[in-house]
């Protein structure tokens, strides 16, 4: 069982960076807060990129995925630094996930709108009077999208319950899956997990996969 492991003497480095950010923000040190926040964004670049790819599979082309990634990173850097009101990396990742989803949806809608606008402008380019009407159409579409995006940003902040979910869900896993998942989340190498739990690598791999499947199901049941 993971519970048998010695208590970790130092906290995780990402939690440390988040605490540094929160402390700088509390102290009114804007430059310090910005520095630590950018560190968090850099450290989590692969996570954000992976989330963009996985959330947009089948909906966005590789070029559009790059755009969505840009959009997500810009929002993470400029918007989430101001709106984030959590205190743990679990909450940070959860907010980032919502923001990534919004960026993917936004990218898809922009592509659709751009395609329609292109067609419409081609059709009426010679008509000077049509420009105002077309701009009004684009404007209305932008207004609608903005309102939806704002709603998505708000819900990203309200739904900062990742830590709560894990506290609730992990104990529901079978003992072996729970032990493997807890050690994985503490960044313990596979060989050490095998040794600690006295199991083979195949068992570790199977337990991981099944635990992730269980967690996905539990998320649907999670009373929010």
């Amino acid at each position: 069982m993971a519970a048998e492991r010695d208590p970790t003497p130092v906290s995780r480095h990402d939690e440390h960076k988040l605490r540094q950010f929160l402390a700088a923000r509390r102290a009114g040190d804007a430059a310090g807060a910005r520095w630590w926040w950018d560190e968090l964004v850099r450290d989590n670049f692969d996570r954000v990129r992976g989330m963009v790819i996985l959330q947009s599979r089948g909906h966005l082309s590789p070029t559009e995925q790059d755009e969505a990634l840009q959009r997500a990173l810009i929002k993470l850097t400029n918007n989430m630094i101001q709106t984030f009101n959590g205190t743990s990396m679990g909450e940070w990742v959860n907010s980032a996930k919502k923001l990534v989803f919004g960026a993917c949806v936004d990218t898809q809608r922009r592509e659709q709108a751009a395609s329609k606008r292109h067609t419409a402008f081609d059709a009426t380019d010679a008509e000077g009077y049509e420009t105002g009407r077309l701009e009004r159409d684009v404007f209305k579409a932008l207004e609608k999208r903005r309102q939806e995006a704002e709603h998505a940003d708000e819900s990203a902040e309200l739904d900062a319950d990742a830590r709560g979910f894990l506290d609730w869900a992990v104990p529901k896993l079978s003992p072996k899956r729970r032990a493997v998942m807890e050690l994985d989340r503490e960044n313990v190498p596979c060989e050490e997990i095998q040794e600690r739990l006295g199991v083979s690598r195949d068992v570790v791999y199977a337990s991981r996969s099944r635990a992730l499947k269980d967690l996905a199901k539990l998320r649907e049941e999670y009373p929010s």
Partner: protein
Amino acid sequence: MTTIEQLVGEFIDAWNAGRRPDVDAYLLRAEPSERDELAAQLMTWLEIAPTPNFDATTQEAISSEPSLTSALAAAADLRAPLAERLSTLRERAGLAIGDLATRLTQLFELDDEPRAAAYLQQIERNELDERRLSRRLLDALAAVLGADRDQLNPSPMALAGGHAFFRAEEDADEWIVEDIDVLSRAALSPAPAAPMDDLDRLFLGGPDA
């Protein structure tokens, strides 16, 4: 053990070792019929995974990722005052202030282009408080200038006014006195003769106007 279990197991090993596994590459290794399931498990992992403790070389490689560097640069540009961004976007669109005022008044079916132009000039000279601009106006500017709406968001500094994040460090007492003085004078001044019209509300009525 199934292929998915194998792939998820390898992905987590690589992630935790800081070897930066590529999601796309792992998806390609699965049978097409198994990719949705693999994607779902990888997504769950990314939601709960610890951030790897990267070594210096890897950190440098991440910092040099083109998509990261360009996003950080774009984010920094977006933190510039709206005054700078608006004039750049307007010039890029090849519009004079008067042209932009004409388009805006057409869009909102208002007249008084000269007053709209004067407001736009005030924005570009940084003489108008960004926080007073309505979202409708910023949406319209984005539409007319063919810009991404995010490029016209008020700068974070403007939005965070008064927030502890930007707490003053040195001569706060002096500017507080100045602010109180300005507010006192404003309180003692008679109210404007005419209430705000639609055009005023766009530029001065605040985000929701």
